[in-house]
């Protein structure tokens, strides 16, 4: 089946853990936007959701860091974070080992990836799922792009990876959705936490909505770091979804800098022809 859904959203832990500290109008608007994204996702009746995230040293470390990794298990436990800290309960999310195996086999025709038969979710995946599949009843295929420990995959390789994901989804009989999670500009978990470069974010989202490959690949890590922080490296997850959307145009349903959440909170989708 052709890909049925493509979107991106934020995954910052503060969205759950520091909810009470945020501006009421902004936080409620974000939660409404998440819920509308859930409705749009459910309406496409996906058999599985490919969640392209940038994990934070929950599974992968610099002793053997994959640029691209895909989960291949029947279940995924998480989050690794303390329940009281993250305010998301421990849960077992369903996977589908057979589907992952076939998906990875297809992706490998275009991109080199690592596969993982063991994977524990952190906030990068579980926070979006807590909104988008709150009953954790849709199988997930977790995908990780290393956005934390340089050297990082160059953006053209990320784009190619996104194209490989699309080709794999289209080649399988199942209805596959793809959701990228990450931040745009942000300085998470550093003394600069809460700083957000709103102008940079809006320019990025303009490129993302237009799905302008050339403009999206024009970034380089040094200027991203200077303008958008180390959290800006996570644009890779957004770019992978752009590539997977194969030219479709997008809509930003919600964007607002929410400093206590440490990111410009974003909900956006592409209008792909399902």
């Amino acid at each position, binding site marked *: 089946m052709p890909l049925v859904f493509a979107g991106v959203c934020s995954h910052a832990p*503060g969205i759950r*853990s*520091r909810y009470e500290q945020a*501006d009421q*109008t*902004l936080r409620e*608007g*974000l939660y409404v*936007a998440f819920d*509308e994204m859930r409705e*749009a996702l459910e309406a496409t009746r996906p058999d599985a959701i490919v969640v392209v995230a940038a994990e*934070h*040293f*929950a599974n992968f*470390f*610099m*002793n053997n860091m994959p640029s691209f990794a895909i989960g291949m298990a029947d279940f995924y436990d998480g989050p*690794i*974070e*303390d329940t009281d*800290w993250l305010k998301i309960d421990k849960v077992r999310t369903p996977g589908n080992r057979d589907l992952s195996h076939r998906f990875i086999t297809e992706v490998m025709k275009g991109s080199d990836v690592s596969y993982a038969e063991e994977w*524990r979710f952190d906030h990068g995946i579980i926070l979006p799922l807590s909104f988008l599949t709150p009953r954790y009843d849709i199988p997930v295929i977790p995908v990780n792009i290393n956005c*934390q*420990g*340089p050297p990082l995959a160059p953006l053209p390789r990320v784009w190619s990876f996104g194209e490989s994901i699309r080709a794999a989804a289209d080649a399988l009989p199942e209805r596959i959705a793809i959701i990228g999670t990450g931040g745009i500009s942000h*300085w*998470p*978990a*550093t*003394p*600069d*936490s*809460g*700083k957000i*470069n*709103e102008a940079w974010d*809006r320019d990025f*989202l303009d490129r993302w*909505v237009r799905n302008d490959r050339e403009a999206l690949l024009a970034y380089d890590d*040094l200027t991203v*770091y*200077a*303008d958008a922080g*180390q959290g800006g490296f996570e644009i890779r997850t957004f770019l992978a979804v752009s590539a997977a959307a194969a030219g479709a*145009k*997008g*809509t*930003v*349903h*919600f*964007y*607002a*800098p*929410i*400093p206590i959440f440490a990111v410009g909170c974003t909900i956006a*989708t592409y*209008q792909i022809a399902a």
Partner: protein
Amino acid sequence: MSLYYVQKFLYELNRDEKAQQAYLADRVGVLDGYDLTDEEIQALVEPDIGLLFHLGVNGQILMHFAAFHHIAWADYLDLMRQGIATHGPVREGVYAMTGYEGVDAHTSALGQHGRTAQPTNTEGSR
């Protein structure tokens, strides 16, 4: 200096409850087998969040260590700021990539000051 092993210890601690129990039982002994300097050992045992940030520990690793020690979010941020003020710029790692000179310098570089935020809903077909 062995930032890699400092981070590796914290990575393993963050995701393993048994490692956390071992750390609480014997904070020094649990560091056996990691190639660490005395300064790094001190920072991990105390714990000294500010020094660990100065040494270059990634915040995505460090924030879990702070949460494990029941350090509140605002205090965690302050401890890192104090670490930079006390010890100087981050020595190594991702934050040293272009030099880390502190919050004020970053704010100034970005031309940001106090501002308010409004949500955006850029309508297309939904």
